[in-house]
């Protein structure tokens, strides 16, 4: 059961992962958005648990106040908003308590370095603004300077939360809960949604001025999201009802929720059919660069290949055949290799021979099943296409000599890596530290260049080979 759960959140992680530049380290990646999303994706489940058990008790008092005011316009319903924020806070507390047994969530725990915890650390520390407000401020109803929150503030808060987490599911959850408890009517929910959407738009357009790339994602998301809110709310409520029937269904419903969410997101992005892949920045950049008509087919192939690969990885992780970390690192590896290929394509005119080095990754694959063969063939074709286009423009000025040398170096490095892997698996370590190796190599090659043992070019070639691993 736990596997499926982890599998499902990694699905979200994988699909929605924002640019992760570095090789994944156990200490956690630097992107808070990923973690936020991961957490928020899990939230429905936890909140449902929390809700089912405690809200009935906690909110006995608050609903008593509400019904009388439910007839007023939403903007005047300060208490309602207070209740929302309070509930959020309670759920979060509950959530953190709840989840420590699952080893997934811990606040400010940096003693243990399991990947999951670390991710949460980042999440916690980066969600500074609103989180701190909740934590420092017991009832969450005051500004930092102590003045009480107005309704506008609360709408602002929600919108900011949604924006930061990049997940409108935050809103959905709040609203669906309120609806479920009968605290607000559908029309009120719509109004709230409009208000929040408005604020969100403002936020986004403000941010869009400072970033160049961001406008694409949030804008398209919000636009499509607001259009589909009613659809989402109802299934969510339906699922929660279903959940109320028993915890046995929790994982199933969780999966359903998420896959529904995923599908919906995928469909949402269908207008530009490789939006999903924008989380692979290098791949995305590559696709963007292929704009010409005649290469449209190549573009199609590339997209299909990437999507299929991502689906495979998702499936692997979902069924627990590979760990989420492996899935992530595989995909990152992929992305980095793509980056390299792209770079080489650009550099092809400067140094011809070097580009040939990196056609290597595509050539080799030990096929064990037909589907993998197909995949590998696709990959090969993809890289092959890139490589071929490189060749075409190649004036072939250089001799074969430098190529032979780098060939020899490649071979030597390959043997080294092979031996290191074998050598370390016999020991207790599961995986040798590639990043440490890379650092060492960088250091040594620099030293060798200084001493006249290596040419600058050779050193660069070696560093490049290692950085592509």
């Amino acid at each position: 059961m736990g596997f499926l759960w982890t599998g499902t959140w990694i699905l979200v992680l994988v699909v929605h992962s924002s640019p992760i530049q570095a090789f994944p380290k156990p200490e956690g990646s630097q992107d808070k958005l990923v973690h936020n999303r991961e957490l928020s994706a899990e939230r429905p489940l936890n909140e449902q648990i929390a809700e089912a058990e405690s809200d009935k008790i906690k909110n006995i008092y608050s609903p008593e106040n509400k019904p009388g005011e439910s007839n007023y316009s939403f903007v005047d319903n300060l208490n309602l908003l207070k209740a929302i924020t309070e509930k959020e806070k309670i759920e979060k507390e509950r959530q953190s308590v709840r989840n420590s047994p699952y080893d997934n969530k811990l606040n400010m725990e940096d003693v243990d370095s399991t990947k999951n915890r670390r991710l949460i650390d980042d999440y916690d520390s980066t969600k500074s603004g609103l989180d701190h407000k909740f934590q420092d401020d017991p009832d969450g109803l005051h500004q930092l300077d102590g003045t009480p929150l107005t309704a506008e503030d609360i709408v602002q808060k929600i919108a900011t939360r949604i924006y930061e987490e990049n997940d409108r599911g935050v809103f959905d959850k709040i609203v669906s809960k309120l609806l479920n408890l009968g605290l607000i009517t559908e029309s009120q929910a719509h109004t709230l949604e409009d208000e929040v959407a408005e604020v969100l738009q403002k936020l986004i357009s403000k941010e869009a001025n400072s970033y160049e790339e961001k406008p694409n994602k949030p804008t398209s998301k919000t636009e499509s999201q607001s259009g589909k809110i009613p659809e989402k709310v109802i299934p969510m409520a339906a699922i929660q009802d279903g959940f109320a029937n028993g915890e046995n269904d929790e994982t199933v419903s969780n999966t359903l929720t998420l896959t529904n969410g995923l599908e919906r997101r995928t469909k949402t992005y269908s207008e530009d059919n490789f939006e999903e892949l924008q989380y692979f920045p290098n791949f995305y950049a590559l696709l963007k660069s292929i704009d010409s008509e005649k290469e449209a087919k190549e573009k199609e192939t590339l997209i299909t290949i990437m999507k299929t690969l991502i689906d495979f990885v998702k499936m692997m992780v979902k069924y627990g055949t590979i760990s989420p970390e492996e899935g992530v690192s595989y995909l990152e590896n992929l992305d980095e290799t793509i980056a390299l290929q792209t770079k080489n394509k650009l550099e092809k005119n400067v140094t011809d021979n070097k580009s040939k080095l990196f056609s290597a990754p595509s050539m080799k694959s030990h096929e064990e099943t037909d589907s993998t063969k197909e995949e590998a063939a696709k990959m090969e074709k993809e890289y092959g296409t890139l490589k071929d286009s490189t060749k075409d423009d190649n004036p072939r000025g250089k001799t074969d000599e430098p190529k032979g040398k780098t060939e020899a170096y490649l071979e030597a490095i390959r043997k080294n890596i092979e031996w290191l892997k074998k050598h370390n698996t016999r020991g207790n370590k599961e995986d040798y530290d590639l990043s440490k190796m890379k650092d060492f190599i960088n250091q040594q090659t620099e030293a060798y260049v200084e001493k006249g043992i290596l040419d600058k070019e050779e050193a660069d070639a070696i560093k490049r080979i290692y950085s592509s691993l």
Partner: protein
Amino acid sequence: MAGRGGRALLALCAALAACGWLLGAEALEPGASAAGMRRRRRLQQEDGISFEYHRYPELREALVSVWLQCTAISRIYTVGRSFEGRELLVIELSDNPGVHEPGEPEFKYIGNMHGNEAVGRELLIFLAQYLCNEYQKGNETIVKLIHNTRIHIMPSLNPDGFEKAASQPGELKDWFVGRSNAQGIDLNRNFPDLDRIVYINEKEGGPNNHLLKNLKKIVDQNAKLAPETKAVIHWIMDIPFVLSANLHGGDLVANYPYDETRSGSAHEYSSCPDDAIFQSLARAYSSFNPSMSDPNRPPCRKNDDDSSFVDGTTNGAAWYSVPGGMQDFNYLSSNCFEITMELSCEKFPPEETLKTYWEDNKNSLISYLEQVHRGVKGFVRDLQGKPIANATISVEGIDHDVTSAKDGDYWRLLVPGNYKLTASAPGYLAITKKVAVPYSPAVGVDFELESFSERKEEEKEELMEWWKMMSETLNF
């Protein structure tokens, strides 16, 4: 859990994982980039060793490849530059490259001192590759060697000469072209002639080891020394080498000290104090080389005088007198024992023969490496356990002392027998120990030396004790 997806998924996952790793790490197979069958691949290749001549760029490339393949156990460094600016490259193989581990003996191979004697240079490149390959294959002998020795390999001490020799057109190379360095200096006659000094000392009394005092003055101010020579001398002084070999060509024999005749005649057997161990060391090389140790082998040239050759070995001076050679310089200025190997009748044989030379010498090279783990070794420390550097270790009956290195460690190569070893240092009381030495491995003998002041203190204390006792007994 995994069964959920069925076997296909499992296989898929494995394939994907393999794919992923391979994507990252797989190198270009030579066949894959068939476009460009280079000249270098034309020749015989075995396990990554290509048996062909390496010019300076290829030499560098070969060493870099070994380093890239075996980063954990290797390091490349340079001891200096040749006259024309080529680096005198050394590749070091050890389990902790760049570091002298206390107690771990240092070994060096130097080749191609005469630029046109090419076989040694190539053999050393092959050796470096071989050691790396075998280490990774788990070859126990090699693994043990690399873990317990610090091996330094300098394929060429005279890269300038080699370029000159190799640039000659055609396969037949001249006997002399490329022999000396770019300045025309024969490097194996260029070292300070310590033999001369030792012979004088023998007659008039004086030390017969570590004869090069005031190193800096003598070496750096001596205008007659070639840059290659200077570089090697500094190298010898910096690292406490224990055993070494100097690879040459033009004949087929293992040659040991002394190289210069005592009387000054053309040739006469001139033994050094360690004649016994040197003979044993020379045999350890020659016996594994089938042609070198072949008793029925005809001399390289019809009129050659090889009467001094015994079992593929010879005393240097008995063969012909060589003053100012690197071999004797090692023995007389440092702790290092060096032997000169002549590896081929032809100085610069055709490339196709290189593989055969490798096959003939492979086992010899390894066997000679293992010789460094013989005799006696250990540490010289004071009573507090602190190492005493530069302590003298002398062997009764052998008029040649060695000294301890910075960590107090010493190594004394000896043939099997019973010996009395004495360790001494200025300000300390000498200690003598009896040792029974087998053929191998080396016997460990440590010394804890008491300094004079400590002894004085002890004696004072003893005196006080005695006085106390006396006064108590006699009641005063």
